[in-house]
Each structure stands twice: as structure tokens, then as C-alpha cells.
């Protein structure tokens, strides 16, 4: 394997691109499940930053945080998808702009 000589900035820029992709997904899509997947995209972009910093500074803390973020993401997935299920059961839709229950 080629010894890594990639500047840290490359990872940061890639991570920023992925994060912005996730932001666009959350803002522009209507399907709650796709919004949910875009949130996962953003979480993973941050994870990439953490691992990059961890590897470039030789500190294990970044990878520990990634571990905990993954656990929280798993919890979020379970609860988020249960909410989508409950929403679909009550309103027969997963499109967020058709849900105006909390609009005043």
C-alpha cells in the first residue's frame, strides 16, 4: 500500500462537501425517510472529520467519539423510523409538507 501523504485538508474538504450534500438533502426533499437518510449523511461527514483528526494527531479520542456517534445514530434510527411509521399510520403520508399538525 502506498504510504499516505495526503494533506489533512483534503479530508476536511471532502467532509465539508458531504456535509453540505446532506444539508441540501434535508432542505430540499419532502420524503421524511430521505430526510432521515440525509441526516445520516451529515453524521457520517462529521465522523470522517473526527477520524481524520484522530489519525493525523495520533489521539484515540476522535475514534472514541465516532464510536459514540454511531451508537447515538443507531438509537436515532430506531426512534426516527418509529416516528415515521406512526406518522404514516395516522396521516397516510410520509411527506413532511403534508403534516401541519403543529402549525399554528
Amino acid at each position, binding site marked *: 500500500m502506498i504510504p499516505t*501523504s495526503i494533506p489533512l485538508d483534503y479530508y476536511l474538504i471532502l467532509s465539508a462537501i458531504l456535509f*453540505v450534500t446532506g444539508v441540501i438533502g434535508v432542505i430540499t426533499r419532502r420524503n421524511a425517510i430521505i430526510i432521515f437518510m440525509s441526516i445520516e449523511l451529515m453524521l457520517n461527514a462529521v465522523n470522517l472529520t473526527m477520524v481524520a483528526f484522530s489519525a493525523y494527531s495520533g489521539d484515540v479520542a476522535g475514534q472514541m467519539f465516532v464510536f459514540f456517534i454511531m451508537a447515538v*445514530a443507531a438509537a436515532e434510527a430506531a426512534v426516527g423510523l418509529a416516528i415515521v411509521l406512526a406518522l404514516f399510520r395516522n396521516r397516510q403520508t410520509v411527506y413532511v409538507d403534508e403534516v401541519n399538525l403543529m402549525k399554528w
Partner: protein
Amino acid sequence: MLLFAVFAIGAVTSALLTITRRNPVASAMSLVAHFFMLSGLYLTLEAQFVAAVQVLVYAGAIMVLVVFVIMLLNLGREQQLAERGNAIRVTLGTAVAGIFAVMMALAVIGRESGASALHPQAVTIGTTESIGQSLFTQYLFPFEAVSLLLLAALIGAVILAKRHVKEEA
């Protein structure tokens, strides 16, 4: 460098596919591909444990859950027609994200250039041994807290998704 380029391009492409596909199943499959690309990126950073967990937890567990819900809700073609690209929303959303991207680019460019090579100890800190060592000593309390959080999420998900029969009885 070559590996990084391949995985980076793959990751960006699959991320874009995830947010542009009309069909939720296609989105989910692109997201699985994205997770594999990220796992490859973690390997280029010598983070073996995180790479393995990425595939196991994200591509394995979370995406199965997502695909399962998509199938359960039967998000087929006719409901898909309802999703018309609202031009204003897409333009505004992309503009907001663009501002955000510019801010992040300024932040990355503005600081002094970071490290240009992996830390010499990067290989040893990414192993399961090193992660486990920290996890069960220094990070023991967060570890236990996360287990409690997972339990709470489990119960919450079951209660939320449960069919309420005869609520007013």
C-alpha cells in the same frame, strides 16, 4: 493517494445519488454504497476498527431498518408522483447550503495548513485493542451511558411504533 481519490469520488457521487433519486429504495442503496466508500476512507486513515463498525452498524443494521420501513410503507410509484420538484424550494435550499459551503470553505482555507502526513502512531491507535483499552478505562462512563440510551431508544421505538388498539376503551 489513488485510493483516497477513488473513495472520495465514490463517496461524493453516492451521496449526490442519495439525495437526488426519486425512488426511496434507490436512495437507500446509494447510501449503502456511500457507507462502503466511507469505510474505505477510514481504512486509508488506518482506522480499522471504525471501518469495520461502519460496515456492520451503518450498512448492516441501520440501512436494513430503513429499507425495512420503506418496504413496510410500500412507497411505490403513485405516491412518488406527488413529489414534484418545487423549483423555489430547491433553489432556496441550494442557496442556503451554498452559503453554508462558502462559510466552511473559508474556515478550512483561513486556518494555517494542517498536518500533511498521518501521525506515526496512527496505525496503532486504530486497532481494536487500542479502542477497547480506552473504551473500558477512560471512556467507561460514556460507554455505560450509551448503553442506557440504546435501551431507552429501544423502548421508545417499540412504544411509538406499536399499533394502538382500543385506546378509548
